[in-house]
């Protein structure tokens, strides 16, 4: 039961955090509620996608389809990282203008380009983490302790929701300028973590050379094979023994983001 709680909490947390931060942002500058509606639609779609993906992962044992799923999972990581980044930069452009422009205009702009992105990001976040949760719960159900499983899973889900709600609420307390900056930075960190996970998958599958592996070893400091270390790794992209290719991808990502960040700041 304790294990079910922890696994469900951790698997759902990332999805809920992304949703919570988006929610806080939408609440601050979208009066119509349309953005929040697309957020919830996206979350619901994500649950459906997670069930489908979990079912596929359970049913498929063939090598080839196993590989196709692996590619699909890696691709969702890239898409999610890219979309979140693109949205944050979009937010930044519009957050700048917000003071000068009428609120209605901003809402109209958000309607056009932001809402589909919000929905897709939410759906991907849920689907990615959800698929593993589905398999984990399915496996636990085979073990027979259904009551303990149910309590653990529901508590884990509620715990993740509460964690993200607290994060979103404390973000929303801030003034809008600070909220935008802080939520943007958090989302970018999450996006970079997704990117590192994707790069690692490519290296692990042998599709990308690691170049130099590992570049350093900080497992004495933070060991990413422990529960807590894994949590840090999942949310920040931290690796105790990173490959050079991962480092390069990480540096390139932040270089490009900083460049775009500055540009949107002046424009």
């Amino acid at each position, binding site marked *: 039961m304790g294990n079910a709680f922890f696994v469900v909490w951790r698997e759902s947390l990332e999805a809920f955090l992304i949703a919570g931060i988006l929610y806080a942002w939408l609440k601050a500058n979208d009066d119509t509620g349309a953005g929040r509606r697309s957020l919830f639609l996206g979350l619901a779609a994500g649950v459906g996608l997670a069930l489908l993906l979990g079912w596929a992962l359970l049913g498929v044992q063939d*090598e080839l389809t196993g590989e196709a799923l692996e590619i699909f999972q890696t*691709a969702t990581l890239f898409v999610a990282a890219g979309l979140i980044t693109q949205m944050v930069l979009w937010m930044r452009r519009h957050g700048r203008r917000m003071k000068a422009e009428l609120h209605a205009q901003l809402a109209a702009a958000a309607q056009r380009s932001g809402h589909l992105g919000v929905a897709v990001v939410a759906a991907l976040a849920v689907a990615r983490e959800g698929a593993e949760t589905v*398999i984990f719960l399915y496996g636990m159900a085979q073990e027979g302790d259904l009551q303990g499983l149910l309590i653990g899973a529901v508590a884990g889900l509620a715990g993740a929701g509460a964690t993200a709600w607290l994060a979103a609420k404390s973000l929303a307390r801030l003034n809008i300028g600070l909220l935008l900056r802080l939520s943007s930075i958090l989302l970018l960190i999450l996006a970079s973590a997704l990117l590192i996970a994707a790069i690692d998958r*490519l290296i*692990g599958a042998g*599709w990308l050379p690691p170049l130099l592996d590992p570049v350093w070893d900080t497992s004495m400091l933070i060991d990413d*094979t422990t529960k807590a270390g894994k949590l840090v790794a999942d949310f920040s992209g931290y690796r105790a023994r990173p490959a050079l290719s991962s480092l390069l991808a990480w540096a390139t990502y932040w270089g490009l983001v900083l460049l775009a960040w500055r540009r949107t700041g002046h424009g």
Partner: protein
Amino acid sequence: MKHALLSVIFGLLLASGAAVADDMPTFKLLMKDGRFFPEMLEVPANTRFRLEVKNEGPGATEFESLELKKELVLAPGVTRNLVFFPMKPGSYKFFDDFHPETGQGRIVAK
């Protein structure tokens, strides 16, 4: 978005080209009751090898290692293969992400 699509295509191309040679040494790893059997695998260094991971349950398991860059979710009763690329001599940790307390193991490349 465009980059993401490109990487998908790139991945697909590479996958189709990656024919796996069958003379690779194969090692077996059993996952059972949240534990690994054996907990220490000795493999030759600088050699490609295949790891056949079987989950005998009960429950789902996840073979994971950030340093080996592998992640594999296994439903109970499922066997899957992982191909490892030549590694330098050393000890590499892996764990069962669904049973992190008991499921810890390592690969020693010699």
